[in-house]
């Protein structure tokens, strides 16, 4: 566990408030290095894939994606699907963030290969706890081979 292997965190979230809260709490937990926030699914797809649909980089070894489910234009589930379809991006750990606890939606996300599903709790303490667990999780999955099968 060395500093130069720190995970880059990509947050895809349309709600500015949520984004700020997530960032603040990640910082408070000491996990904000390499933090990047994108405003919706389309931006996320543009980040990972070029105009020709090919991945923009040969690999995204040290990145973790926090993906909001409900977003305008391209939703989180669509981004999840695209990332898991492409060989290059398939191993990127993806954590779904959502306000719903609908078991069917959760199941759907796991079917598409998300690594973790976190319900955004309204209880702030619980939310912090969730983010802390997230941070702990992120530290564990720094191993490059981490992917679908590791969860």
């Amino acid at each position, binding site marked *: 566990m060395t500093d130069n292997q720190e995970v880059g965190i990509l947050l895809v979230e349309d709600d500015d408030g949520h984004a700020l*809260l997530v960032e*603040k709490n990640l910082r408070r937990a000491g996990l904000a290095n390499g933090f990047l926030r994108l405003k919706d699914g389309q931006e996320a797809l543009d980040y990972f894939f070029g105009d020709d649909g090919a991945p923009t980089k040969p690999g995204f070894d040290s990145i973790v994606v926090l993906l909001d489910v409900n977003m305008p234009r391209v939703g989180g589930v669509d981004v999840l699907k695209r990332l898991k379809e492409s060989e290059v991006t398939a191993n990127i750990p993806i954590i779904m963030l959502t306000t719903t606890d609908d078991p069917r939606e959760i199941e759907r996300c796991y079917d598409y290969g998300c690594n973790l599903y976190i319900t955004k709790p*309204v*209880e*702030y303490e619980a939310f912090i706890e969730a983010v802390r667990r997230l941070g702990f999780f992120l530290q564990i999955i720094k191993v490059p081979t981490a992917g679908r099968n590791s969860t």
Partner: protein
Amino acid sequence: MKLFKKGLLLVAIPGLFELALLAVLYKSQENATQAESWALHTKDVIIQAAEVRDPVLLQSARLRSAIILNDTTGLDRNDLWDSIDKEVGELHDIVVDNPEQVQRVAQIRKAVAEYKAWTEEQVELLKAGQRDKLVESFRNPSAIWLIQVIQRQLVEFIRVEEKLDNIRLERVAEARRLQNIALVIALIGSVLAAALAAKIFSKDVGGRLAVLTGNARRLSSGGELAGAVGGNDEITELDRVLHETSKRLKEADERARAYREELERHARELVLVNDDLQRQTQDNEMFIYSVSHDLRSPLVNLQGFSKELHHSIREMHDTISGSNLNDKDKQRIHDVIEEDVEVSLRFIRTAVSRSASIIDSMLRLSRVGRVEYQSQLTDVNEVVRRVIDAMSSTIRERQAVVMSQPLPPCYGDPTAVEQIFGNLIGNAINYLDPLRAGTVEVGVLPSDPGQPDFRTYFVKDNGLGIPADHLGKMFSAFNRLHADVAKGEGVGLALIKRIVMRHGGKIWVESTEGVGTTFYTSLPVQPAGHSENQAVQGEKTHD
């Protein structure tokens, strides 16, 4: 014409024919009889003619013997002449109808008279003893001729009569022959007439009866009837009745079909309306779901940033404490932070928590309509036991007694069924009257023959009860009666009502304030749309 008349005709036609032939027969019989009697008559005439000849010959013989014996004693007697007269008279009498023979009789009479005159002349001669003259007159051929004339006339008479007799005998034979022919014709004719009448009758009645039978058969099998049977008798009447019946049946059929179509149309409309309502309910649930979902997002911010504010205030508090402001100002700022900002934030956080729990309830409520049930035969005894176990601490706390009868299994989602009983038993325990020993009874009503697919379970308590004017709102969401007694958003009953309805059942409540409350819920005991025999099996399984 009535059948009786036809039957009568059947008998009467050959009868009439026979009667006519009988008349002919009778007539020919009469003719024959008459011919016979004429023949007999002729024989009588011939005999009578012979009767005439005998006394003439006798008289002649008497005369001759008198002449030979020369004795006139016998000649004075007139008996033979009288006899001849009598016989000739009789002969005349019996041929009086035949003028030709009457004329002959008259000639015979004349000849007899001549002979009598001649005989008397001879008798006179004999009496006078003039034998010579007598012999001479005898030798006179005219004397013999007189007898011969009579005899010849008689012979002629008899010959004519015999000829008549022959003719009459022929007539008799002819009449007999005709009679025989008439007899044969009458026999054959009557048989033929009877056969013909029977044939016509059977063709008419039999043929129409066959049509009638065919019509009756078609009527019973619901087919189209043949055309009306002709005629004017009971068969026609019966056929008419059959046709009318057929017409009535068709009309009734038509009406029944119209009703059926009407019913089917209504059923289709109901299905459409039902579908529409279901869609609307789904839309509403979807709407509630998305609204409450969307409301969560800002709540996350409210809650999160109020907490952030709290952090910032704490930081500010610490900063102020460590600053070089005078104590009075520090105290003043601390008071503002503690009494104004913190209190305000606490109110905000409470409001947000409350909103969040309401939204959660709404989400749960909307999810009831969308969750997929795994319906199966569920042991309600087991469900109730689990519910009571889970609440055992609360039950002990309230010193309540919860009793459960043996309950039949129901057909439903086990989780949903547990939710139903959990909610009802939980409510019963929560709203017990603290002033008396609480009892909760779980049971089932006797099965209703009108609803074999459902059983009605109940949860009965002796708790606080529900005011009459509140009973109608019991199953509405966010409607709390005893908000002070237990926590909750007031969606429990609305939730389980939706669950029960999705199982096809019903839920209702009876209550008396201050006495107790009974909740009833009917649940299916077998999959929907099962037939009667499966209903019987369903009954058996929980016997």
